[in-house]
């Protein structure tokens, strides 16, 4: 599979990616939350 046909048939499969959006959003939110907590912890130690 090459890059070009994937783009060419974008209309056939883009909606499949949309199923992964909730996972990406939640993982992103959790990662951000963890990063903030770790940063706050570091600041408290300093």
């Amino acid at each position, binding site marked *: 599979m090459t890059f070009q046909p994937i783009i060419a048939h*974008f209309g056939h499969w883009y909606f*499949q990616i949309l*199923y*992964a*959006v909730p996972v*990406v959003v939640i*993982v992103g939110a*959790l*990662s951000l939350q963890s990063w903030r907590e770790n940063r706050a912890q570091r600041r408290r130690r300093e």
Partner: protein
Amino acid sequence: MSTPRRLAAGLSAGMLGWLAFPEAALAHGLVGKTDLPIPRWLFAWAAAIVLVASFVALATLWPRARYQTPPERQIGRYPRLLDPICGAIGVALFVAVTYAGIAGHQEATANILPTWIYVIFWVGLAFASFLFGDIFRAFNPWRAAARLVAWLTGLVRPGRTAAEPLSYPSWLGRWPAALGLLGFAWLELVYVNKDVPQTLAFLALGYAALQLIGMSLYGIELWSSRADAFSVYFNLFSRLSWLRWADGRIYRRPPFVGVVTLEILPGTVALLAVMIGSTSFDGFSVGSVWVGSGQLFSRLQDFFTNLGVAVETASELAGTVGLLGMVLVIAGLYRIGVIGMRSLGGDHDARELSARFIHTLVPISLAYVVAHYFSLLAYQGQAISYLASDPLGDGSNIFGTASSSIDYNVVSANAIWYVQVGALILGHVAGLTLAHDRALATYTRIREATRSQYWMLAVMVGFTSLGLWILSSTQ
């Protein structure tokens, strides 16, 4: 980057890459065309919102563990004689359908055995176990046969029972059941001759013989509860039921909570991964990413054919890779949740957490079964009406229903989709609730317990999205 974050990033990238295979969706064999008011992917978003809202509600409104011991109330009694009667019926049915498989017509749709095994037994009993409790335990033909032998031994040699000569190794746990279910999934989803009645009949006889040997060596109840794949499988679903039958008494309890008493034994994680992974692969293997020109299946088949393997064997090897791959994906998702849990709260190690929270996957497994097999049961389950009248496919009409047929209008394609979405959401909310309750019992502070479940929430959303994506790509 910490381990859970690396895993999460890998998972997200993997899922995106995995979903990015081009090809239009193929039509599922049984479900007709749906006419939905919103796109299917929007259902996945809605399901994720429901899960997040449930998580927030649990964190704020559920401050203490409630269901670590399921509340039960006795609602009735049943005669002890029911057990041997059900056992005798189970043995009679087993003998009848196995005989039909051996002596009857060898076309799968004309013989009762394939429909009996794949629809009535495998799917129907899973639904029934959730609705009515552990029915298979009563009707289990090999357990009934073993109990009869034990009873006869007691009659012939009074004072002596058929004592088991070996003690069941503790390290074995539920591993035999996990391997047994993987074998059955392989038979159903990968094996080329999966619907040849004679093959199925001989495999059923072989499995029954193996169970009888196991029960004679390690004890009937111990073997049934840990090593007999089907006993373990249906028992897990019966733990979600609102009914429990034991020692002549019938108990009522809230649905889903019976599973909290699941004993922590080796092989349980593998068992649940096989249960969810095999159901997922059943849908995935007819989806647009797997089948079709240039897709995963044909690529794997070509790979094995190029190694000099026969086409049929190459097809089975490709299917085996797909099945094992899906089981590993499910096990990996759960592992991510556990590692995330460990990283966010308390000083519990991953092995302990994995065992303590594994029961939360049981409602998810049931949700996958309902979502994937509801249409099969609704449509193909009707075939039993004419197959029962003509089990051998020789033209007989025992009950006068041999000329009946399947009514495909019994449930619409839209209704099936809503049942699938509803089952997945309900199963995952139940899993999330059970995980929250167990976290409250595991961690000393509420905040710690809630934080520990962040990654389980992500895993539940992942399972829901994966399930809906697989279902949508088959329709």
